């Protein structure tokens, strides 16, 4: 994780905009990977928003994370269509392949498994999204193959 880079609250980062807290936190997560303590303190100091409000908002919305995630974020869709098409089995297959449970990150910080409510690709159920790529019409076998691809790419990078 790179060191804390300060935001320029006067010129950029939604300066002068009403209701800037949510977009600020979104920007923070984009640049830091998650909402860091330093960033919360910085927003409080520079924008005059009470710490309690920042923390309250950061914990209310599912999008915000207060802990770092792995390099590859696997979002397993558990929408209605995916549920009736076996999303639970898909999650289990990924858990088996990576050796961690839903919501956890692998020890090498390469993968995080996350459950999401709906990715909106219901006609391709069951669906997962790895980073920005969507994979649909999965079976347990197929999803393991997808994960292996990312594992291969990950080991290729570290070597």
């Amino acid at each position, binding site marked *: 994780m790179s060191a804390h880079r300060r935001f320029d609250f006067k010129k950029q980062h939604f300066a002068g905009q009403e*209701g800037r807290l949510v977009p600020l936190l979104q920007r923070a997560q984009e640049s830091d990977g998650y909402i860091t303590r330093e960033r919360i303190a910085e927003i409080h100091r520079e924008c005059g928003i009470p710490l309690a409000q920042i923390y309250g908002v950061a914990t209310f919305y599912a999008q915000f994370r207060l802990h770092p995630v792995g390099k590859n974020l696997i979002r397993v869709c558990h929408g209605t*269509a995916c*549920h009736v098409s076996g999303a639970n089995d898909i999650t289990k297959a990924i858990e088996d392949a990576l050796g961690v449970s839903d919501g956890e990150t692998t020890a090498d910080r390469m993968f995080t498994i996350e459950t999401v409510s709906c990715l*909106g*690709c219901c006609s*391709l159920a069951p*669906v997962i999204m790895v980073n920005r790529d969507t994979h649909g019409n999965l079976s347990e076998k197929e999803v393991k193959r997808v994960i292996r691809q990312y594992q291969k790419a990950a080991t290729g990078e570290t070597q």
Partner: protein
Amino acid sequence: MTRVVVGLGTCGIAAGAEKTYDALAKHHAAGTAAFELDKTGCIGMCYREPLIEIRSEDGSRVQYGNVTADKVDRLLAEHVGEGRVIEDWVVWADDGRGTERAYFSRQTRIVLRNCGKINPEAIEDYLAADGYMALRAVLEQDDPDALISAIVDSGLRGRGGAGFLTGMKWRFTRLAGGGRKFIICNADEGDPGAFMDRSVLESDPHSVLEGMIIGAFAIGAHEGYIYVRAEYPKAIERLNIAIAQAETHGFLGERVGGSSFSFHVKLKEGAGAFVCGEETALMASIEGRRGMPRIRPPFPATKGLWDCPTSINNVETFANVPWIVLNGAEAFASIGTANSKGTKVFAMAGKIKRGGLVEVPMGISIRDIVFDVCGGIKKDRKFKTVQMGGPSGGFIPAELQDTVIDYESINRTGAIMGSGGLVVMDETACMVDVTRFFLEFTQRESCGKCTFCRVGTKRMLEVLTRISNGEGRDGDVELLEQLAQLVKNTSLCGLGQTAPNPVLTAIRYFRSEFEAHITNRRCPAHQCKPLLTYTILDSCVGCLLCAKVCPTKAVTGELKKVHVIDQSKCTHCGECHKVCRVDAVAVY
């Protein structure tokens, strides 16, 4: 020159449409075939993605389905090169060919009028399809009251779920005092199983923008927000492009279309909270607070965003507006039933042959949508129920499939029209399991403000969980019904008021299934694992495969002899059933 158009909605991309596009682009750049390459949004047949359309110089159109990148060479050589249509791949053609014609024959496309036809990233395409003509007409007429009356007369009702008359909402907001007013486009499509708004935004963002600008003019708002789910990156990307283009063309900003009216719009990304689909919670979220609903009245029309009068309308509602302005309120009101006018877009998903986006006139029956438009149930299994309206909606059983689609008829079944997610289930769906799934969702998404929504849904979930674990007690069904009524009656917002709907409709139509779980400890649909018993039949060939995969060593046996499962060790994981090659592991 021949144009090759690739459908690049999220569904298409997930099925590999970008790779198809890249393969085409390579040929285009190399000049191996002479054609123009273009992209479009959602063509609608998600079940046949990736989809491409070839438009010949003479204007004829042919759509191909399942065009993965490896099929590009043949397609270019035969269709583009030699002008020979590859019959086997055609899904639809304007000359009457194609295997999927039935999918379109019952549809009436108003909201989806441009979807899959125009390039969503090119305002020129939208303008060529009469885009922004409605806005020009409205500005020329310069009579907001007449405009509002026309929308009222058209009978357009909010497509977000509740079905309030759009024109009335605008009238209240217009009549409210105060100088500063807002208009908000609710694109926080949170219902699992719904993707209409995503597809419209990805395929025709300008139609939503135009409807919104017209709405702003009607109520006298100069500022607007579009609140989009962050889970829809493609929709956000295309909306941003559309906003920038509308600004350069003078449809947004100061002096819209040369008139004295000014309007600015900002895009807000949601942060993943289902409750923010509720209008007061959505406004709290835009204001930078926790998205919690508040008591109404005052309604947003008088006191909304930053206490200013605000109108909040759904994506699909806005997309209808330009069509109504151009074609007249009467034309719109002539479609549909007495109290539900126009069309409704449905996102068809689940165990259905043709899943995708359909737009049908109000008044069509559920049977017609499921069987005529969508081709019936996958693998020709038995149709059991449709779930309408997501976690706020309910189940409509196969016996009621002749129910027609209009707000009142759907409400009478206990479900709601909702935003338009329609998930079809076959006999393999367990109602206890699916109900539990919905309640798990609403329980997690409850903002926690109202006690019964916060605690009541939790208690209901616990009851449902124990039923599906085979630990149900006598009286559990009645307890669920009682809690459901309490949660409904004592919650402030739509989330809590509707969260019990799936439970109530499931009990109403499938009570015996609940009782089978509780009394007989059986799951008739074979979904609740703790209730299943696995046994090995005499047809077992003794291959040892199941014994190898069994995690608790409950399966024993010798090679080429029938194996046995020790029920006391079995954890009901189902692995033996899955690996058996001769279907000798029976489940009941």
